[in-house]
């Protein structure tokens, strides 16, 4: 087995990365959901999220990227992606949220200084319900952004291993 050196870590830039998360999410929602996202003007109180989609990152940056929202927002996102009613989309919301999370993570990754060459993404996971605690890594740093999808807040979060 060939053992290679780990890729060099990329320095965390909270302001730039928060902006890149926003831009990445706006691109994904514009192209795949057909909706404009707006950054919440003021910090929004975190409601208990009903849907949490997450993608792991490993390599030059290590951590977990999550998108959290209400069940209604997850259904509405699935409905808009597929061009069907919210009722029809109820069985697709898990898959849709996982895919959106994956695309936003991929978009963010491609905007890193090294073009994402040294960062791998996991297959997405979606959790429903609010009775859980997420503890990804020790020594973590968190970048959080709130975006407005129609009248529903979406919280994007990057939990990073320093």
């Amino acid at each position: 087995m060939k053992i290679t050196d780990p890729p060099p870590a990329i320095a965390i830039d909270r302001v730039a990365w928060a902006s890149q998360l926003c831009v990445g999410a706006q691109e994904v929602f514009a192209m795949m959901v057909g909706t404009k996202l707006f950054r919440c003007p003021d910090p929004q109180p975190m409601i208990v999220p009903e849907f949490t989609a997450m993608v792991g990152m490993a390599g030059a940056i290590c951590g977990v990227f999550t998108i959290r929202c209400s069940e209604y927002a997850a259904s509405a996102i699935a409905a808009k992606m597929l061009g069907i009613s919210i009722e029809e989309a109820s069985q697709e919301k898990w898959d849709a949220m996982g895919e959106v999370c994956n695309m936003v993570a991929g978009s963010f990754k491609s905007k890193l200084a090294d073009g994402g060459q040294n960062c791998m993404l996991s297959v997405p996971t979606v959790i429903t319900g609010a009775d859980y605690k997420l503890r990804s890594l020790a020594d973590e740093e968190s970048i959080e952004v709130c975006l407005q999808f129609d009248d529903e807040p979406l919280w994007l979060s990057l939990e990073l291993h320093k």
Partner: protein
Amino acid sequence: MQKEVVLMKPVKALIVDDSSVMRKIVERSLRQAGIELSGVVEAANGVEALAVLGRTKVDLILSDINMPVMDGLEFVRQLQGVKEAKNIPVVMITTEGSESNVMQALSLGAKGYIRKPFTPDQVKEYVLPVLEP
């Protein structure tokens, strides 16, 4: 300048993605791109895709890279060993920004790639040339 391609016949497509939502979006995008489909078959990973190809003839394969069970790179690699299927054009659809993954897919035999997120116009731009007779 974009090259105009005239398709002689509708194509049957195999869409490989672990996300059922994405499979539907890819199919819709193909239709919106003006690609006439005679049929669509789906698979959730490379293993399922190889099984589908054992019983169904298709003209085009669109495959995700990052999938459980068997990923898109391994699928393309194994496809080259299937005599009846190795000449079917494969277009990778991926969120992976990594050039190395894309280059690896191309070196294994994929004819092109589309990055997610994508528009129907981008699907047209990348898929039509590989269908050229």
